[in-house]
Protein backbone atom coordinates (compact mmCIF):
# COMPACT_ATOMS: atom_id res chain seq x y z
CA UNK A 1 0.00 0.00 0.00
CA UNK A 2 1.54 3.36 -0.95
CA UNK A 3 1.98 5.80 1.90
CA UNK A 4 -0.57 8.62 2.18
CA UNK A 5 2.06 11.20 1.23
CA UNK A 6 2.76 9.51 -2.05
CA UNK A 7 -0.89 9.80 -2.90
CA UNK A 8 -0.87 13.58 -2.84
CA UNK A 9 0.97 14.21 -6.13
CA UNK A 10 -1.27 11.63 -7.79
CA UNK A 11 -4.40 13.19 -6.34
CA UNK A 12 -3.19 16.58 -7.49
CA UNK A 13 -2.59 15.27 -10.98
CA UNK A 14 -6.03 13.74 -11.00
CA UNK A 15 -7.65 17.00 -10.01
CA UNK A 16 -5.69 18.85 -12.68
CA UNK A 17 -6.69 16.28 -15.27
CA UNK A 18 -10.34 16.46 -14.34
CA UNK A 19 -10.40 20.25 -14.35
CA UNK A 20 -8.72 20.28 -17.75
CA UNK A 21 -11.38 17.99 -19.11
CA UNK A 22 -14.05 20.24 -17.70
CA UNK A 23 -12.38 23.26 -19.28
CA UNK A 24 -11.84 21.85 -22.79
CA UNK A 25 -14.78 19.82 -23.92
CA UNK A 26 -14.01 17.11 -26.52
CA UNK A 27 -10.45 15.72 -26.16
CA UNK A 28 -10.09 12.79 -23.64
CA UNK A 29 -7.64 13.33 -20.78
CA UNK A 30 -5.59 10.71 -18.95
CA UNK A 31 -6.92 10.06 -15.47
CA UNK A 32 -3.50 9.54 -13.84
CA UNK A 33 -0.06 11.10 -14.06
CA UNK A 34 1.97 9.06 -16.50
CA UNK A 35 5.29 10.64 -15.57
CA UNK A 36 5.34 8.52 -12.40
CA UNK A 37 5.30 5.26 -14.31
CA UNK A 38 8.42 3.18 -13.71
CA UNK A 39 8.93 0.38 -16.20
CA UNK A 40 11.94 -1.85 -15.76
CA UNK A 41 13.87 -2.86 -18.86
CA UNK A 42 14.72 -6.47 -18.15
CA UNK A 43 18.16 -7.73 -19.07
CA UNK A 44 17.53 -11.20 -20.46
CA UNK A 45 20.49 -11.62 -22.78
CA UNK A 46 22.72 -13.84 -20.64
CA UNK A 47 24.47 -16.92 -22.06
CA UNK A 48 26.78 -19.59 -20.61
CA UNK A 49 29.33 -18.02 -18.26
CA UNK A 50 32.55 -19.98 -17.61
CA UNK A 51 33.08 -20.76 -13.94
CA UNK A 52 29.47 -20.10 -12.97
CA UNK A 53 26.56 -22.34 -12.10
CA UNK A 54 24.71 -21.93 -15.41
CA UNK A 55 21.00 -22.63 -15.36
CA UNK A 56 19.69 -23.40 -18.86
CA UNK A 57 15.97 -22.67 -18.67
CA UNK A 58 14.15 -24.69 -21.36
CA UNK A 59 10.65 -23.32 -22.08
CA UNK A 60 8.58 -26.22 -23.39
CA UNK A 61 5.09 -27.68 -23.43
CA UNK A 62 4.54 -31.43 -23.24
CA UNK A 63 1.75 -32.15 -25.73
CA UNK A 64 0.68 -35.75 -26.28
CA UNK A 65 -0.28 -36.22 -29.91
CA UNK A 66 -2.74 -38.93 -28.97
CA UNK A 67 -3.79 -40.36 -25.64
CA UNK A 68 -6.79 -41.10 -23.46
CA UNK A 69 -8.53 -43.05 -26.17
CA UNK A 70 -10.55 -46.06 -25.25
CA UNK A 71 -9.78 -49.35 -26.92
CA UNK A 72 -12.97 -48.92 -28.97
CA UNK A 73 -11.85 -45.51 -30.22
CA UNK A 74 -8.53 -46.95 -31.33
CA UNK A 75 -10.22 -49.91 -32.99
CA UNK A 76 -12.69 -47.65 -34.84
CA UNK A 77 -9.80 -45.53 -36.01
CA UNK A 78 -8.03 -48.55 -37.43
CA UNK A 79 -11.18 -49.97 -38.99
CA UNK A 80 -11.78 -46.73 -40.85
CA UNK A 81 -8.12 -46.58 -41.85
CA UNK A 82 -8.35 -50.10 -43.25
CA UNK A 83 -11.37 -49.16 -45.37
CA UNK A 84 -9.54 -46.14 -46.75
CA UNK A 85 -6.47 -48.20 -47.49
CA UNK A 86 -8.29 -50.96 -49.33
CA UNK A 87 -9.65 -48.23 -51.59
CA UNK A 88 -6.16 -46.79 -52.16
CA UNK A 89 -3.17 -48.91 -51.10
CA UNK A 90 -0.77 -46.13 -52.12
CA UNK A 91 -1.75 -44.25 -48.95
CA UNK A 92 0.03 -46.68 -46.68
CA UNK A 93 3.28 -45.41 -45.19
CA UNK A 94 3.67 -48.41 -42.95
CA UNK A 95 2.50 -51.97 -43.24
CA UNK A 96 1.88 -52.45 -39.55
CA UNK A 97 -1.24 -50.33 -39.15
CA UNK A 98 -3.48 -51.85 -41.86
CA UNK A 99 -2.43 -55.34 -40.91
CA UNK A 100 -3.34 -54.67 -37.31
CA UNK A 101 -6.69 -53.23 -38.39
CA UNK A 102 -7.37 -56.31 -40.51
CA UNK A 103 -6.63 -58.51 -37.53
CA UNK A 104 -8.97 -56.55 -35.29
CA UNK A 105 -11.87 -56.87 -37.71
CA UNK A 106 -11.43 -60.51 -38.69
CA UNK A 107 -10.22 -62.42 -35.64
CA UNK A 108 -12.34 -63.39 -32.65
CA UNK A 109 -13.04 -62.03 -30.12
CA UNK A 110 -12.55 -58.52 -31.58
CA UNK A 111 -14.59 -59.02 -34.78
CA UNK A 112 -17.68 -59.71 -32.70
CA UNK A 113 -17.84 -56.05 -31.66
CA UNK A 114 -17.08 -54.43 -35.01
CA UNK A 115 -19.81 -51.85 -35.62
CA UNK A 116 -21.26 -51.15 -39.02
CA UNK A 117 -19.18 -48.23 -40.27
Amino acid sequence: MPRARALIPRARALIVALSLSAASAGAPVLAFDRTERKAVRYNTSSRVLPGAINIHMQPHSHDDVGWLKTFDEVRLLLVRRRSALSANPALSASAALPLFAHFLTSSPPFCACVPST
Partner: protein
Amino acid sequence: MRPQYLIGRNGSQQTVGGVQFIYDGVITSLLRNPSRTFTAVEMGFMMRWLETAQPEDAAAAVELVQRGSLVLSNAGWCMADEAVPTWTDMADNLALGHRLVARAFGRNASVLPRIGWQIDPFGHSAAQGSLFTAGAGFSAMFYGRLDMEERAARKAANATEYIWRPSRSLGAAAQSFAGFNIHGYDPPGFPDGRATPFHFDVTQDTPQQPAVFGPVQDNPAWDGLNVDDFVSAVLEIARNHSSYILPDEVDGTINLAWQMGTDFNYVAPIQWYQSLDRLIHYVNINTSQHGVNLFYSTPQGYADAKLAQRTAWPVKTDDQFPYWGDEKHWTWTGASARILFLQSIYLSV
Protein backbone atom coordinates in the same frame (compact mmCIF):
# COMPACT_ATOMS: atom_id res chain seq x y z
CA MET B 1 -5.63 -38.02 -36.26
CA ARG B 2 -8.48 -36.65 -34.22
CA PRO B 3 -7.74 -32.98 -33.71
CA GLN B 4 -9.06 -32.33 -30.22
CA TYR B 5 -5.71 -31.63 -28.61
CA LEU B 6 -4.80 -29.38 -31.52
CA ILE B 7 -7.98 -27.31 -31.56
CA GLY B 8 -8.58 -27.47 -27.81
CA ARG B 9 -11.50 -29.74 -27.20
CA ASN B 10 -11.04 -32.53 -24.68
CA GLY B 11 -11.93 -30.88 -21.40
CA SER B 12 -14.04 -33.78 -20.19
CA GLN B 13 -10.94 -35.90 -19.64
CA GLN B 14 -8.15 -33.47 -18.85
CA THR B 15 -7.30 -29.79 -18.94
CA VAL B 16 -6.35 -29.12 -22.55
CA GLY B 17 -5.90 -25.64 -23.91
CA GLY B 18 -5.34 -26.35 -27.58
CA VAL B 19 -1.91 -26.70 -29.15
CA GLN B 20 -2.85 -24.27 -31.94
CA PHE B 21 -3.10 -21.55 -29.30
CA ILE B 22 0.22 -22.57 -27.80
CA TYR B 23 2.04 -22.15 -31.12
CA ASP B 24 0.28 -18.91 -31.97
CA GLY B 25 0.98 -17.32 -28.58
CA VAL B 26 4.56 -18.57 -28.32
CA ILE B 27 5.39 -17.04 -31.69
CA THR B 28 4.12 -13.66 -30.51
CA SER B 29 6.14 -13.90 -27.29
CA LEU B 30 9.31 -14.92 -29.10
CA LEU B 31 9.02 -12.02 -31.55
CA ARG B 32 8.76 -9.54 -28.69
CA ASN B 33 12.08 -10.50 -27.10
CA PRO B 34 14.82 -12.19 -29.17
CA SER B 35 16.43 -13.64 -26.03
CA ARG B 36 13.42 -15.86 -25.43
CA THR B 37 13.36 -19.47 -26.61
CA PHE B 38 10.92 -22.33 -26.93
CA THR B 39 11.34 -25.93 -27.95
CA ALA B 40 8.68 -27.65 -30.07
CA VAL B 41 8.62 -31.44 -30.16
CA GLU B 42 5.61 -33.01 -31.87
CA MET B 43 5.58 -32.40 -35.62
CA GLY B 44 2.09 -33.93 -35.91
CA PHE B 45 0.82 -30.78 -34.25
CA MET B 46 3.28 -28.39 -35.90
CA MET B 47 2.42 -29.51 -39.41
CA ARG B 48 -1.33 -29.40 -38.77
CA TRP B 49 -0.96 -25.89 -37.37
CA LEU B 50 1.20 -24.71 -40.27
CA GLU B 51 -1.40 -25.95 -42.76
CA THR B 52 -4.10 -23.63 -41.45
CA ALA B 53 -2.13 -20.74 -39.90
CA GLN B 54 -2.27 -17.36 -41.57
CA PRO B 55 0.63 -17.00 -44.04
CA GLU B 56 2.30 -14.26 -42.00
CA ASP B 57 2.12 -16.38 -38.83
CA ALA B 58 3.57 -19.41 -40.60
CA ALA B 59 6.30 -17.19 -42.02
CA ALA B 60 7.05 -15.88 -38.54
CA ALA B 61 7.40 -19.45 -37.30
CA VAL B 62 9.86 -20.26 -40.09
CA GLU B 63 11.85 -17.12 -39.34
CA LEU B 64 12.00 -17.96 -35.61
CA VAL B 65 13.16 -21.52 -36.33
CA GLN B 66 15.89 -20.29 -38.67
CA ARG B 67 16.93 -17.70 -36.12
CA GLY B 68 17.20 -20.33 -33.36
CA SER B 69 14.52 -18.89 -31.08
CA LEU B 70 12.07 -21.69 -31.82
CA VAL B 71 14.00 -24.91 -31.66
CA LEU B 72 12.81 -28.35 -32.73
CA SER B 73 13.73 -31.23 -30.44
CA ASN B 74 13.12 -34.88 -31.32
CA ALA B 75 10.70 -33.72 -34.02
CA GLY B 76 9.12 -37.02 -34.92
CA TRP B 77 5.45 -37.07 -35.81
CA CYS B 78 4.98 -37.79 -32.10
CA MET B 79 7.15 -38.82 -29.17
CA ALA B 80 7.31 -42.60 -29.55
CA ASP B 81 6.96 -45.01 -26.68
CA GLU B 82 10.05 -47.19 -26.51
CA ALA B 83 8.63 -50.42 -25.07
CA VAL B 84 5.83 -51.41 -27.40
CA PRO B 85 6.17 -50.14 -31.00
CA THR B 86 8.12 -52.03 -33.65
CA TRP B 87 11.41 -50.42 -34.55
CA THR B 88 10.19 -49.89 -38.11
CA ASP B 89 7.36 -47.73 -36.84
CA MET B 90 9.77 -45.86 -34.59
CA ALA B 91 11.96 -45.18 -37.63
CA ASP B 92 8.92 -44.09 -39.67
CA ASN B 93 7.90 -41.72 -36.86
CA LEU B 94 11.23 -39.90 -36.83
CA ALA B 95 11.74 -40.01 -40.58
CA LEU B 96 8.32 -38.55 -41.30
CA GLY B 97 8.79 -35.76 -38.77
CA HIS B 98 12.28 -34.84 -39.97
CA ARG B 99 11.22 -34.90 -43.61
CA LEU B 100 8.40 -32.50 -42.81
CA VAL B 101 10.79 -30.24 -40.88
CA ALA B 102 13.16 -30.06 -43.84
CA ARG B 103 10.30 -29.25 -46.20
CA ALA B 104 8.60 -26.65 -43.98
CA PHE B 105 11.57 -24.99 -42.28
CA GLY B 106 14.62 -25.72 -44.42
CA ARG B 107 17.67 -27.92 -44.19
CA ASN B 108 20.29 -25.71 -42.55
CA ALA B 109 22.07 -26.93 -39.45
CA SER B 110 20.29 -24.61 -37.05
CA VAL B 111 16.92 -25.95 -38.14
CA LEU B 112 17.26 -29.71 -38.28
CA PRO B 113 16.61 -31.43 -34.96
CA ARG B 114 19.75 -32.71 -33.28
CA ILE B 115 18.52 -33.73 -29.83
CA GLY B 116 16.48 -36.69 -28.67
CA TRP B 117 13.74 -35.59 -26.26
CA GLN B 118 12.09 -38.64 -24.69
CA ILE B 119 10.70 -36.99 -21.59
CA ASP B 120 7.56 -39.09 -21.12
CA PRO B 121 8.19 -42.71 -22.26
CA PHE B 122 8.27 -45.26 -19.48
CA GLY B 123 11.72 -46.78 -19.73
CA HIS B 124 14.18 -46.56 -22.60
CA SER B 125 15.31 -49.09 -25.15
CA ALA B 126 18.73 -49.87 -26.57
CA ALA B 127 17.32 -49.20 -30.05
CA GLN B 128 16.16 -45.74 -29.02
CA GLY B 129 19.54 -44.96 -27.46
CA SER B 130 21.49 -46.05 -30.51
CA LEU B 131 19.51 -46.22 -33.77
CA PHE B 132 17.22 -43.34 -32.91
CA THR B 133 19.75 -41.08 -31.23
CA ALA B 134 23.18 -41.23 -32.91
CA GLY B 135 21.57 -43.05 -35.83
CA ALA B 136 19.18 -40.14 -36.29
CA GLY B 137 21.92 -37.52 -36.18
CA PHE B 138 21.31 -36.56 -32.55
CA SER B 139 24.26 -35.67 -30.34
CA ALA B 140 22.34 -36.30 -27.12
CA MET B 141 19.15 -37.72 -25.67
CA PHE B 142 17.42 -36.34 -22.58
CA TYR B 143 14.64 -38.17 -20.84
CA GLY B 144 12.35 -37.92 -17.85
CA ARG B 145 11.26 -41.28 -16.55
CA LEU B 146 13.57 -43.92 -15.19
CA ASP B 147 13.60 -46.71 -12.67
CA MET B 148 13.41 -45.23 -9.17
CA GLU B 149 16.34 -47.28 -7.89
CA GLU B 150 18.51 -46.28 -10.82
CA ARG B 151 17.58 -42.65 -10.27
CA ALA B 152 18.64 -42.78 -6.60
CA ALA B 153 21.85 -44.66 -7.39
CA ARG B 154 22.85 -42.27 -10.18
CA LYS B 155 22.18 -39.17 -8.09
CA ALA B 156 24.27 -40.61 -5.26
CA ALA B 157 27.10 -41.38 -7.68
CA ASN B 158 26.95 -38.02 -9.52
CA ALA B 159 26.15 -40.03 -12.64
CA THR B 160 22.83 -38.59 -13.78
CA GLU B 161 24.46 -37.76 -17.14
CA TYR B 162 26.73 -40.08 -19.11
CA ILE B 163 27.81 -41.43 -22.47
CA TRP B 164 25.19 -43.98 -23.49
CA ARG B 165 26.45 -46.87 -25.60
CA PRO B 166 23.57 -49.35 -25.51
CA SER B 167 24.13 -51.27 -28.77
CA ARG B 168 26.35 -54.30 -28.38
CA SER B 169 26.90 -54.58 -32.12
CA LEU B 170 27.41 -50.91 -33.01
CA GLY B 171 29.24 -49.92 -29.84
CA ALA B 172 30.84 -46.46 -29.82
CA ALA B 173 29.72 -45.83 -33.40
CA ALA B 174 26.18 -45.37 -32.09
CA GLN B 175 26.80 -43.73 -28.72
CA SER B 176 25.70 -40.29 -27.57
CA PHE B 177 25.46 -38.07 -24.53
CA ALA B 178 22.43 -38.84 -22.39
CA GLY B 179 20.90 -37.89 -19.08
CA PHE B 180 17.68 -37.50 -17.14
CA ASN B 181 15.92 -34.29 -16.17
CA ILE B 182 15.79 -32.94 -12.64
CA HIS B 183 12.03 -33.49 -12.26
CA GLY B 184 10.64 -35.55 -15.11
CA TYR B 185 9.86 -32.67 -17.40
CA ASP B 186 8.51 -30.20 -14.85
CA PRO B 187 10.33 -27.26 -13.26
CA PRO B 188 12.39 -28.26 -10.22
CA GLY B 189 10.94 -28.19 -6.73
CA PHE B 190 12.69 -27.35 -3.47
CA PRO B 191 15.23 -29.86 -2.12
CA ASP B 192 13.04 -30.55 0.93
CA GLY B 193 10.17 -31.68 -1.29
CA ARG B 194 8.09 -28.48 -1.39
CA ALA B 195 6.42 -27.82 -4.72
CA THR B 196 8.16 -25.81 -7.42
CA PRO B 197 7.62 -22.05 -7.37
CA PHE B 198 8.18 -21.98 -11.13
CA HIS B 199 4.80 -23.32 -12.31
CA PHE B 200 3.86 -20.02 -13.95
CA ASP B 201 1.23 -21.47 -16.29
CA VAL B 202 -2.41 -20.45 -16.00
CA THR B 203 -3.36 -24.13 -15.57
CA GLN B 204 -0.99 -24.68 -12.65
CA ASP B 205 -2.57 -22.28 -10.12
CA THR B 206 -5.68 -24.11 -8.92
CA PRO B 207 -7.67 -24.30 -5.68
CA GLN B 208 -6.38 -27.85 -5.25
CA GLN B 209 -2.76 -26.80 -5.74
CA PRO B 210 -2.25 -23.03 -5.52
CA ALA B 211 0.88 -21.42 -6.95
CA VAL B 212 3.71 -21.08 -4.41
CA PHE B 213 4.54 -17.40 -4.90
CA GLY B 214 2.50 -16.59 -8.01
CA PRO B 215 4.04 -14.59 -10.85
CA VAL B 216 7.27 -12.69 -10.21
CA GLN B 217 6.02 -9.40 -8.71
CA ASP B 218 8.67 -6.70 -8.66
CA ASN B 219 6.70 -3.48 -8.11
CA PRO B 220 7.33 -2.24 -4.54
CA ALA B 221 4.22 -0.05 -4.74
CA TRP B 222 2.00 -3.13 -4.87
CA ASP B 223 1.23 -5.98 -2.49
CA GLY B 224 3.06 -9.26 -2.74
CA LEU B 225 6.56 -8.15 -3.76
CA ASN B 226 8.35 -11.50 -4.11
CA VAL B 227 11.60 -10.93 -5.97
CA ASP B 228 13.73 -11.89 -2.96
CA ASP B 229 11.70 -15.08 -2.43
CA PHE B 230 12.27 -16.07 -6.04
CA VAL B 231 15.99 -15.29 -6.08
CA SER B 232 16.47 -17.26 -2.86
CA ALA B 233 14.54 -20.16 -4.36
CA VAL B 234 16.67 -20.15 -7.50
CA LEU B 235 19.89 -20.14 -5.48
CA GLU B 236 18.74 -22.87 -3.09
CA ILE B 237 17.51 -25.18 -5.85
CA ALA B 238 20.54 -24.50 -8.04
CA ARG B 239 23.03 -25.26 -5.28
CA ASN B 240 21.30 -28.52 -4.44
CA HIS B 241 21.04 -29.50 -8.10
CA SER B 242 24.69 -28.74 -8.83
CA SER B 243 25.80 -30.93 -5.91
CA TYR B 244 25.29 -34.03 -8.08
CA ILE B 245 26.16 -32.63 -11.51
CA LEU B 246 29.69 -33.04 -12.89
CA PRO B 247 31.51 -29.74 -13.49
CA ASP B 248 34.13 -28.81 -16.05
CA GLU B 249 37.35 -30.10 -14.50
CA VAL B 250 39.44 -27.08 -15.51
CA ASP B 251 37.36 -24.02 -14.61
CA GLY B 252 34.53 -25.51 -12.53
CA THR B 253 31.77 -24.46 -14.92
CA ILE B 254 28.50 -26.20 -14.11
CA ASN B 255 25.58 -26.53 -16.51
CA LEU B 256 22.09 -27.31 -15.21
CA ALA B 257 18.86 -27.75 -17.18
CA TRP B 258 15.51 -26.67 -15.81
CA GLN B 259 12.44 -27.52 -17.89
CA MET B 260 10.05 -24.58 -17.70
CA GLY B 261 6.71 -26.10 -18.61
CA THR B 262 4.57 -29.21 -18.34
CA ASP B 263 1.52 -30.82 -20.00
CA PHE B 264 -0.21 -28.48 -22.46
CA ASN B 265 1.35 -25.37 -20.94
CA TYR B 266 2.00 -22.07 -22.76
CA VAL B 267 -1.54 -21.46 -23.99
CA ALA B 268 -1.00 -17.98 -22.46
CA PRO B 269 2.77 -17.81 -22.90
CA ILE B 270 3.21 -14.28 -21.54
CA GLN B 271 2.49 -15.73 -18.09
CA TRP B 272 5.72 -17.67 -18.44
CA TYR B 273 7.87 -15.20 -20.32
CA GLN B 274 7.08 -12.22 -18.12
CA SER B 275 8.16 -14.13 -15.01
CA LEU B 276 11.13 -15.81 -16.70
CA ASP B 277 12.35 -12.42 -18.02
CA ARG B 278 12.18 -11.04 -14.47
CA LEU B 279 13.83 -14.10 -12.91
CA ILE B 280 16.79 -13.78 -15.27
CA HIS B 281 17.10 -10.06 -14.62
CA TYR B 282 16.99 -10.21 -10.83
CA VAL B 283 19.10 -13.34 -10.35
CA ASN B 284 21.83 -12.13 -12.70
CA ILE B 285 22.23 -8.72 -11.05
CA ASN B 286 24.35 -10.50 -8.41
CA THR B 287 25.95 -13.34 -10.37
CA SER B 288 29.42 -12.12 -9.35
CA GLN B 289 28.42 -12.63 -5.69
CA HIS B 290 26.44 -15.88 -5.72
CA GLY B 291 27.87 -17.47 -8.87
CA VAL B 292 24.54 -18.44 -10.42
CA ASN B 293 23.78 -17.38 -14.00
CA LEU B 294 20.27 -17.83 -15.38
CA PHE B 295 19.28 -17.59 -19.06
CA TYR B 296 17.01 -18.79 -21.83
CA SER B 297 18.28 -21.97 -23.45
CA THR B 298 17.17 -25.10 -25.28
CA PRO B 299 17.96 -28.82 -25.11
CA GLN B 300 20.42 -28.19 -27.97
CA GLY B 301 22.16 -25.35 -26.17
CA TYR B 302 22.39 -27.45 -23.03
CA ALA B 303 23.86 -30.42 -24.90
CA ASP B 304 26.40 -28.15 -26.63
CA ALA B 305 27.49 -26.80 -23.24
CA LYS B 306 27.81 -30.32 -21.82
CA LEU B 307 29.78 -31.63 -24.79
CA ALA B 308 32.12 -28.62 -24.55
CA GLN B 309 32.91 -29.48 -20.94
CA ARG B 310 36.26 -31.04 -20.06
CA THR B 311 34.68 -33.78 -18.00
CA ALA B 312 35.21 -37.52 -17.80
CA TRP B 313 31.66 -38.73 -18.26
CA PRO B 314 30.72 -42.19 -17.03
CA VAL B 315 29.61 -44.75 -19.62
CA LYS B 316 26.37 -46.73 -19.59
CA THR B 317 25.98 -49.79 -21.80
CA ASP B 318 22.65 -51.32 -20.76
CA ASP B 319 19.11 -50.37 -21.69
CA GLN B 320 16.48 -49.02 -19.27
CA PHE B 321 13.96 -51.83 -18.93
CA PRO B 322 12.07 -52.97 -16.95
CA TYR B 323 10.73 -49.72 -15.55
CA TRP B 324 9.82 -49.40 -11.89
CA GLY B 325 8.31 -45.96 -11.52
CA ASP B 326 8.40 -43.24 -8.96
CA GLU B 327 6.28 -44.78 -6.23
CA LYS B 328 6.72 -48.10 -4.54
CA HIS B 329 3.71 -49.70 -6.20
CA TRP B 330 3.92 -48.28 -9.71
CA THR B 331 5.60 -50.77 -12.00
CA TRP B 332 5.11 -51.16 -15.74
CA THR B 333 4.73 -54.87 -16.00
CA GLY B 334 3.86 -56.84 -19.07
CA ALA B 335 5.65 -54.61 -21.57
CA SER B 336 7.66 -57.51 -22.91
CA ALA B 337 4.59 -59.71 -23.17
CA ARG B 338 2.80 -56.95 -25.07
CA ILE B 339 5.56 -56.67 -27.59
CA LEU B 340 5.35 -60.35 -28.44
CA PHE B 341 1.56 -60.19 -28.73
CA LEU B 342 1.57 -57.26 -31.13
CA GLN B 343 4.36 -58.67 -33.24
CA SER B 344 2.53 -61.97 -33.50
CA ILE B 345 -0.47 -60.07 -34.86
CA TYR B 346 1.61 -58.40 -37.53
CA LEU B 347 3.19 -61.68 -38.53
CA SER B 348 0.02 -63.75 -38.50
CA VAL B 349 -1.98 -61.74 -41.00
